[in-house]
């Protein structure tokens, strides 16, 4: 009998040790501490994770609200899906615009009456309710390294002089003749080619929604579309002068960014988020973003494409208490209306503010360009309703073009076929 007892005790001890491992992992997400409420924040911008953690510590001390910040290497949608399935959602989640559209209906509270709503043009509304708090403004365009260009040409470089493709080609020729034989770089990542560059073909159309639905219906003639051809003429130019022309789809982003930062190449298509990579190298001080040069008279070659980027929403489920929601709202207001919040956004994280009352000094060079275009009203809106597989499937098609395995007509046909086979995102 004694042996049996021993066996049972041992078995129980082992079982307990197994569950103990599990227990420590699932720390309580919504538990309030003694001093005040606790809120959790999901941050999806890896480059500012350290700043967020530091801010959370300071904010917890000054406001008495305990703030914890998390980051995940998974894609945003996949990570939040796990959190929702385990009934352990974040109080505040920072997501991309497209995620707001898929998540907000079930999971976000109405923020319509909030004070900050009047101070921004970028908030996301669904069914007449404001649900998404824009974190910053980001825009895409052609990144240039002014110092590198001037060093070769010996003349001052003014991006406004190169809005047409003809002028731009002239400059590239001059650079090539002056010793910078391959002045451009191209990011081969599918999210860059299709998610950022190809999407501008849609975004710069006069009637974006109309154009997308004509693609769905199969009535759009991409190959003869003026916007498509203008963009592809530019892309061909970039390909011709690409430093990695021989093996364009093996070019690593880190290498391209380094070459751009250090002035080995002068131009690359990207956005102000690229600064977080550029500043890891010996970068030149005078860089900026200019509109994509095109031979067109419709004015798109004088604007960047962009708008609000990364949105906070507040969880609406029963797992979040009313006090937590209030604390989350207070936190958003702190970001917009408190000096410490402002300096966190613009100085610590170097984000272009999405709010008219925030004065941004000390931004990085790319963000300064973006802000000047945004302030002048020269931003073409992002199109946030691309299907989730667009960047991957059209990106693959675009990579084939970049590798020289298909021509412009073939690429246009593949993109048209993609749109015919997909379902529109309702909005």
């Amino acid at each position: 009998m004694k042996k049996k007892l021993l066996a049972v005790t041992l078995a129980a001890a082992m079982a307990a040790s197994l569950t103990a491992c599990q227990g420590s992992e699932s720390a309580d997400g919504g538990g309030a501490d003694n001093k005040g409420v606790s809120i959790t924040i999901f941050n999806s911008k890896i480059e500012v994770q350290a700043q967020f953690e530091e801010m959370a510590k300071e904010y917890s001390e000054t406001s008495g609200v305990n703030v914890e910040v998390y980051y995940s290497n998974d894609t945003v949608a996949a990570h939040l899906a796990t959190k929702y399935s385990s009934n352990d959602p974040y109080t505040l989640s920072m997501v991309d615009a497209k995620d707001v559209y898929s998540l907000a209906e079930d999971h976000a509270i109405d923020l319509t009456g909030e004070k900050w709503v009047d101070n921004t043009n970028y908030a996301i509304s669904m069914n007449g309710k404001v649900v998404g708090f824009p974190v910053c403004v980001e825009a895409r365009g052609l990144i240039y390294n002014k110092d590198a260009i001037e060093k070769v040409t010996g003349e001052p470089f003014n991006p406004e002089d190169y809005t047409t493709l003809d002028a731009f080609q002239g400059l590239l020729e001059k650079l090539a003749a002056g010793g910078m034989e391959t002045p451009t770089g191209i990011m081969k990542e599918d999210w860059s080619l299709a998610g950022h560059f190809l999407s501008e073909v849609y975004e710069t159309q006069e009637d974006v929604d109309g154009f997308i639905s004509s693609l769905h219906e199969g009535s759009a003639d991409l190959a003869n579309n003026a916007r498509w051809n203008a963009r592809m003429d530019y892309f061909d130019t970039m390909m011709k002068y690409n430093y990695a022309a021989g093996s364009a789809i093996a070019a690593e982003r880190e290498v391209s960014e380094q070459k751009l930062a250090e002035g080995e190449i002068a131009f690359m298509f990207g956005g102000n988020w690229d600064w977080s990579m550029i500043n890891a190298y010996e970068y030149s001080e005078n860089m900026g973003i200019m509109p994509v040069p095109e031979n067109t008279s419709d004015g798109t070659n004088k604007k960047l494409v962009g708008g609000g980027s990364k949105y906070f929403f507040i969880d609406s489920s029963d797992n979040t208490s009313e006090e937590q929601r209030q604390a989350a709202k207070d936190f958003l207001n702190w970001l917009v209306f408190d000096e410490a919040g402002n300096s966190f956004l613009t100085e610590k994280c170097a984000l272009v503010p999405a709010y008219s009352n925030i004065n941004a000094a000390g931004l990085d060079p790319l963000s300064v360009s973006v802000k000047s275009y945004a302030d002048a009203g020269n931003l073409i809106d992002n199109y946030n309703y691309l299907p989730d597989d667009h960047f991957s499937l059209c990106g693959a098609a675009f990579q084939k073009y970049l590798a020289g395995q298909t021509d412009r007509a073939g690429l246009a046909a593949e993109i048209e076929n993609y749109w015919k086979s997909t379902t529109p995102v309702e909005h």
Partner: protein
Amino acid sequence: MKTNTMSYKCRQFLMFAGVTTAMFIAVVIVPFIYGIYLTLTSWDGVSKQKPFVGFANYAATFGDGAYWQAMGRTFLYSFIAVILVNIVAFILAFLVTSGVKGQNFFRAGFFTPNLIGGIVLGYIWKFVFNRAFVALGNSFSIGPLSTSWLATTGGAMLCLIIVSVWQYAGYMMLIYVAGFMSVSEDVLEAARIDGCTNTQSIVYVSVPLMTSSFVQCLFLTVTRCFMVYDVNLSLTNGEPFNSSVMAAMHVYNQAFTYKNFGVGQAEALILFVVCAVVGVLQVYVGKKGEVSA
């Protein structure tokens, strides 16, 4: 105490295996059944509703050309990788049991790649293929090395196979080493007295006696190759132009990136069935061939 009553047996079972069975059910069986249920819904992964759609996801799976391409690619990759891994592992095992000086050092060395996680291994080799080989190719003007293999369709697959062989050969080598050691010295001596050459004694004596090692190694490599994801993700990430996307990666993309959870789950289930059939069949056939001395 009676030991063959039902209640005694039940109690014995519960005492020794009850906890593990409960956990196995909780973390494997229940999710598996729940997963099968999810294949019948058009859930997107995050929304609260899980609309029931019957077998529409299976129909979508059969219509998903990219999935079957990925599947075909996985078959091809597994076929080549399994053969190469086992050949290399067998040769290594033979070399490190043949009494070379410092064979323990070699054993440890060949086993090391297996201790590096697949993700890290992928990044290391990406650097080797993209930079080291290219730099070598350029400085010694070796044509095939001067551009990155990862940039071409066939090259990316070749890279995946090379890395898999590098990763698994050491581990399988250990199993083959155990096989070589288990072949008794008397049998080999008898063979030598009968006039066997070295090669003959390996082919006709050692190999048949090591069949169980072959069965184990083949089973392990086949299942691992079919489920490959980590190296696929960090080495090629499906590039160039989604031509190196393996079945597991396609399933992940379908479920989490394209947000077709139901379709992804259905595709995962089919992948599971294929793996199970191939694995079980191979073990069954292999077991039949086992001999004992």
